[in-house]
């Protein structure tokens, strides 16, 4: 017992910094504690003072980060921008139709990138359902020049022609789930072809784009179509923006008459302070005139009201005139869309198609549309 007590004393003595020979009495401890408390308070005050100083002169922001090129090479560093559009729908027709029920809409995969200092490339693959079988098709595959002076750009490959308004827009940017009747009847929905395109943009504050295309067309020599187009646009105040155009598509025919298609398009967008995604109105109309084997005209007009960031509603009227055979279909469509974000929407279309006199087809269509991958930048 005694030896244990001695061992404890030795330990205590060793652990005390001063190697005190005897255990300190309570009074000494109390004094020491007071000293420590005073020290602590002084340290606290010093910290507060430093904090206050720091508050008065915050540190300068850190320097810009070094470019992210350090280290070894990354084989994926040059991967192109990759974006996927998913689209599916359910439709119900009052008249007997083949395309009722569930179906996969146009779902596509797009890759794009600068190729080098002079070219940009884009490839769009689209899944389409043809008579019950899925087909993966090359919707667009083209290169663009990026370094021509004087406001010129040349495009080569397969691309949607720049005629009209909707024709050069991908269907997923449309305000309605289906294309207007004249597009379906005159251009099979959308005219894309193999060829070359030249566009020139005027160096003026008025937007003025002129251009033309040489395309494959349907003739045997594989260069049977050409187009010319002009688009102009601008602002009226900060709340209004407009875009208008005239276009001409000429297609050679191996037999019979060549076909000429003339288009005029007009778009007007109004939104308070120019915040179109938070409320505003879009008006659009396009006019078609076809001369050739068929002599017919077509037009549509649409108005879309953006209620707020999430909701949008619109109405469109389409019709085609054909004096020769009297086939003059019309179509009404009312749409309500809910945008969850820039990247997804759900849409309801109620339509009435009149393809033959006296027999209306009432259409209900529900659609989802989503985009993921690289953030798309949409055209006006």
């Amino acid at each position, binding site marked *: 017992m005694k030896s244990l007590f001695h061992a404890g004393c030795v330990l205590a003595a060793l652990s005390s910094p001063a190697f005190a020979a005897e255990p300190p009495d309570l009074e000494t401890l109390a004094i020491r504690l007071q000293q420590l408390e005073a020290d602590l308070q002084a340290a606290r005050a010093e910290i507060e003072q430093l904090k206050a100083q720091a508050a008065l002169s915050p540190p300068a922001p850190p320097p810009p980060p070094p470019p992210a090129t350090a280290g070894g090479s990354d084989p994926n560093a040059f991967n192109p921008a990759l974006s996927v559009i998913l689209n599916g729908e359910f439709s119900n027709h009052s008249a007997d139709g083949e395309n009722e029920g569930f179906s996969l809409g146009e779902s596509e995969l797009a890759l794009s990138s600068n190729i080098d200092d002079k070219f940009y490339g884009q490839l769009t693959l689209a899944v389409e359902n043809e008579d019950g079988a899925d087909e993966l098709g090359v919707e667009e595959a083209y290169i663009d020049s990026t370094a021509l002076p004087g406001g010129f750009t040349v495009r080569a490959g397969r691309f949607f022609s720049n005629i009209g308004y909707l024709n050069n827009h991908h269907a997923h940017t449309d305000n309605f789930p289906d294309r207007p009747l004249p597009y379906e009847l005159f251009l099979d929905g959308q005219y894309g072809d193999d060829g070359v395109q030249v566009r020139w943009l005027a160096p003026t504050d008025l937007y003025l784009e002129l251009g033309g295309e040489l395309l494959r067309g349907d003739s045997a020599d594989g260069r049977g179509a050409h187009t010319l187009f002009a*688009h102009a646009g601008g602002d009226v105040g900060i709340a209004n923006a407009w875009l208008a155009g005239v276009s001409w598509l000429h297609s050679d025919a191996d037999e019979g008459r060549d076909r000429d298609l003339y288009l005029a398009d007009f778009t007007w967008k109004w939104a308070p302070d120019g915040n179109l995604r938070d409320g505003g109105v879009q008006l659009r109309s396009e006019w078609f005139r076809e001369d050739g084997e068929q002599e017919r005209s077509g037009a549509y007009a649409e108005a879309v009201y953006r209620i707020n960031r999430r909701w949008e509603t619109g109405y469109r009227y389409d019709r085609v005139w054909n004096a020769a055979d009297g086939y003059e279909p019309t179509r009404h469509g009312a749409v309500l869309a809910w945008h969850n974000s820039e990247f997804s929407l759900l849409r309801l279309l109620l339509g009435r198609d009149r393809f033959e006199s006296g027999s209306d087809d009432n259409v209900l269509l529900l659609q989802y549309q989503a985009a993921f991958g690289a953030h798309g*930048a949409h*055209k006006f």
Partner: protein
Amino acid sequence: MKKFFLLLALCAAATPAAAKLRVFACEPEWGALASELGGDALQVDVATSALQDVHQIEAKPSLIAKVRQADLLFCTGADLEVGWLPQLVRQANNPKVAGGAGWFMAADQVSTLDRPSSVDRAAGDVHPQGNPHVQLDPRRVLQIATALAPRLAQLDPANAALYAERLADFGTRWDAAIARWQAKAAPLRGKTVIVHHVSWAYLNEWLGLQQIDTLEPKPGVPPTSAHLAGLIDRAKEQGVYAIVTAAYQDEKPARWLSERTGVPVVVLPFTVGGDDQARDLFGLFDSTIDKLLGAAP
């Protein structure tokens, strides 16, 4: 057809050389900064106004026409304009600004805050390169100005001395203003705020404001009533100093929360032109600090 293209070529050749360096500024603050450094030597086009949400601009024809004629694009970068600027550049057929010296992004010149360690759109409007709203830290604005002046000189060597001179003058006035603002804003240090969108990260860092939540449930997602209701208790418990929104944002959600908590709403200009006082960059910060101080009970 041949005649048509010949005509196009003639039109292009007839274009007169621009006398002044033409700057296309995506946002008003960068238009103002370019004017500070360039004065009359520059022609500055500003793409957007303080009342517009710059995340959500349309690639309007008028903007394409301006990019077509620009010598320098001066934008925020960090994907703020990702929904429209690439389309403007793709359609403008102007190789001068498609990259290289004619492409100047403010966020590339400074360190950014809130860089996410992983990106997922389920988390809302996430910017892989960090928060893009760098214009509300005047120290960063000076860094951007310091990088811009040599770029202007590179594009327009004839006026190099002018840009250097104006930068020095701006820097002197700006440093004095920063000292003034910091002294004035000292009472704001440590105050807590609820903000509409994460637009204020740089202002908060500079002034020592603490953001405890946002009115948006996720960045870029409009406020929902469920999310706002959840903020009522937090705002009361934590004694929030102010609810901060920008001039371009819908004030309704902020007012709703304010009515239920008694916390004042402060509508800040966010950029040049956002209110009467914010007529230039100096006015922007004068107004921002005055309005924040004005929220004190």
